[in-house]
């Protein structure tokens, strides 16, 4: 549905030139929920704006549904109002001088005579119904709560049944509880409609819970693109491992590689550890081992036969209610992990930890 090839966006600001997007290529299939995830300034919003036509790229190709909407080689730049898109802005951009109905009717009115009066009324009502704002038709837009504004913006983006729905951090202005509910609702809605969706966020939880495919961006490039589960379990580098979920990082050096299953041995200051080696690593390479807190176990809990044992002393224990978070110092590194609240752990206690071998990933440093 969407194809982007080698997209570059450079622009001038008062502070100087910015190379916001540096050669992005991606493919979004029909009906797919595609998420661009990254910290602020990584170029994700710029990419989305280029897709919408709000930003003119410096070079590259963008096609929606097979139609090129931007192509530097062919000199094509379709303006936003001619692209088959709907968009929800981070600020919602609800027009304050129109009421709820008029805000939603706007895209239809812009289609001119093609939409009859009755048809328009029906479609606006349907869109409002979809986001549960049916009873607020006549309300002036400024008199809506944050959540209602967000849903109104969504109805406006959906009303003309665009081929592509673009969402620019649509949940970031909602409070925590509402955000949680809306995440599920929004995903269910676009999946039910089967509309191709590109979603921009800096919140890894949103990306993991909503997306079919996540592209993690840093400094204007996509550094890993995969399904949420895969990206969580198999981060390709330290940035992704740290940005999505929590990770412990331990420094070491590859001691041996084993062909076949991709496993190997990494030598660290506190012993040799069996790890999953990223592609292209050979003995002697400096690496960082990433291991999730949930894959670190107390050896007593891991049971007999536990592998990858390291010894340390508990430096801190924090009671979190549903669990206790412990920090253990290992040489230069700190390992965090959680234990059940009833487990007896105390500061200063010497412990043995088991780092589940196939969950330890050695990444190039």
């Amino acid at each position: 549905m969407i194809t982007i090839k080698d997209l570059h966006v450079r622009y001038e600001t008062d502070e100087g030139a910015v190379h916001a997007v540096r050669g992005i290529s991606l493919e979004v299939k029909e009906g797919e929920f595609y998420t661009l995830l990254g910290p602020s300034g990584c170029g994700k919003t710029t990419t989305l704006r280029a897709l919408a036509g709000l930003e003119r790229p410096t070079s590259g190709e963008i096609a929606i549904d097979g139609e090129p909407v931007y192509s530097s080689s062919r000199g094509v730049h379709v303006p936003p109002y001619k692209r088959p898109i709907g968009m929800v802005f981070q600020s919602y951009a609800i027009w304050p001088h129109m009421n709820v109905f008029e805000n939603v009717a706007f895209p239809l009115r812009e289609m001119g005579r093609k939409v009859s009066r009755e048809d328009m009324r029906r479609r606006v009502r349907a869109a409002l119904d979809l986001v549960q704002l049916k009873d607020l038709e006549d309300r002036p837009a400024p008199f809506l709560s944050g959540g209602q504004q967000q849903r109104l913006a969504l109805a406006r983006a959906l009303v003309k049944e665009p081929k592509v729905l673009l969402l620019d951090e649509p949940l970031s202005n909602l409070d925590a509880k509402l955000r949680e509910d809306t995440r599920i609702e929004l995903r269910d809605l676009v999946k039910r409609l089967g509309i191709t969706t590109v979603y921009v966020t800096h919140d890894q939880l949103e990306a993991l819970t909503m997306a079919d495919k996540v592209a993690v961006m840093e400094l204007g490039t996509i550094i890993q693109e995969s399904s949420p589960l895969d990206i969580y379990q198999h981060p390709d580098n330290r940035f992704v491992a740290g940005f999505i979920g929590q990770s412990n990082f331990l420094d070491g050096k590859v001691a041996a590689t084993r062909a076949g299953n991709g496993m190997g041995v990494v030598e660290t200051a506190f012993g040799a550890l069996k790890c999953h080696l990223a592609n292209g690593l050979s003995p002697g390479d400096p690496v960082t081992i990433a291991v999730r807190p949930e894959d670190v176990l107390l050896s007593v809990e891991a049971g007999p036969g536990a592998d990858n044992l390291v010894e340390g002393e508990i430096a801190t224990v924090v009671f979190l209610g549903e669990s206790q978070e412990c920090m253990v110092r290992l040489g230069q590194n700190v390992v965090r992990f959680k234990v059940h609240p009833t487990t007896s752990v105390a500061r200063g206690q010497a412990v043995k930890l088991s780092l589940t071998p196939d969950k330890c990933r050695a990444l190039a440093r």
Partner: protein
Amino acid sequence: MATRAIEIPAARWVFTKGMFWQNLVLLVTAVFVLIPLVFLVLGSFSTARLPTEFSLEKMGLENYAAVWLDPGTYRLFYNTAVYVGGATAIGITTAAILAWLVERTNMPGKIWLYAGIPMTLAVPGLLQAMAWVLLLSPRAGFINRWLMDLFDTTTPFINIYTLGGMAAIEGLRLVPTAFLMLVPLLRSMDPSLEEAAAVSGAPPHSMLRKITLGLMVPGIAAVTIYQAMTALEVFEIPGVLGMPVGLHVFATKIYAILQSNEVLPVFGQANALGMLYLLIGLTAAGFYWYLIRRSERYTVVTGKGYRPRVLDLGKWRWPALGLVFLFLFLSIGLPFLVMLYTSLVPFLQPPSWAVLSKLTWEHYELVFGYPKFERTFWNTVIMVVATATATCIASFFISLVIVRTKFWGRRTLDQIAFVPHAIPGIVAGIAFLWLFLNIDMFGTITSIVIGFTVGFIAYGTRAMNAAILQIHKDLEEAAGVSGAPPWRTMIRVFFPLMLPTFIGLWIWVVLLAVRIAGLPLVLYEGPKNQVLAVLIWNMWDEGDIEAVGAIGVLLMTSLFVLVLMLRFIGFGRGVVQSR
């Protein structure tokens, strides 16, 4: 996210190809603002008899020598300093008391002050000053006459034709703006700053002095300078209260030089004096900008809606409200009543029971019968409508370039557009006088329109900048992705959102243009370009006081209506503050 302007539909629609439009806007603005100033400067060195005989051969320092060797000039410094200082002191003190009463005490009826303050806009300075002359002139002033009768004496009690009189009346006129500038200062102060001092062991008086006042000093200083600039600039008050008895300040002296009947006016000398006046104005403006920058660093004004502590006035609550009503009566009620009375009596005399039975409409009939009134009326209508429209359009385009483009010269443009703010009206008047005499446009309504428009773009662009900044670009981009082409975005989103600002600014300019006498007096040649303010001035000069009363009542009534409309559309306090 860095701020970028290039991809905004509305701006792109207007400025499609390259930088052509931006350059044009900058060029036109620069021409209209700077060319008159060039004439002002050149004229000050010109030794030719008339501005139209200007040539580069007849240049010299004679005008400056004449101005600096005249002991009258030093008298002018003294008079201006006393008048400006007095007016500012009276204005700021009164405004500070009123602001403190409404913001920090439990005085009842606060709404009266908030509602009344904008109404002062409807009373032109010219009429305000004239009303006070009718009350307090040494021989004929109603109040003086009463007091003289009461105490059976022939020495007048109060003389309004003094520096003190000028300072008092101008001080009264400074209060509304000063009040509107001081209120946010008081309102936005974070009470926790004071509470932190209290818990740090500062007793109340020490807290008030070191924290409350300390935080407000930069703000109050800026307001004071701003008010002093206004007092310095105003022509009408010293024109009515000082000029008739030869008591001059800069503004009136320059006008008097131009009007001198005995010999041919010494145009060059007016310019040389104007340069001095301009220098004082620019110095004050520079100081003001410096203070503003400094006070921003304090960031006392955070925009958060704090609930400051309120002082219980106890039994003083009602006297406090009485003070508020006294102020409103002196500023609005009294001048209006005096003018109304004057317009209804057969001939001017102090109020008495006897005269109340002889009230008549004849002056109104007379005024409407004047052919020159009709002409003046239409001149004025054309002038204010054209000025307001031109100001709105010019300010809009200038602000669009400043706020919404990446034009290289947008900061320069911003500064050029603000320059007229620092130029006193009379100085702008002579600058334009030279320009229009030399391009043969003197004596036209257009000349007044151009003069006013250039003066008002300083306020206009401030209002437009703020309004355009407030329209988040997302609102327009949302229209774009909803399928609206740029011109439709302009019509359906941008203009509707800008409309209140357009209407507000338009009415605001009308309110100002109709009341200011200084510039039209300098550019006035005859009935062809006479406007109401000039007519009032001339009739007053000729002693046609009752007719002035009638015109004054009609003018103030229409201005009241305009002010109410302004309130209705809620046009920003922000702009009200700029004058």
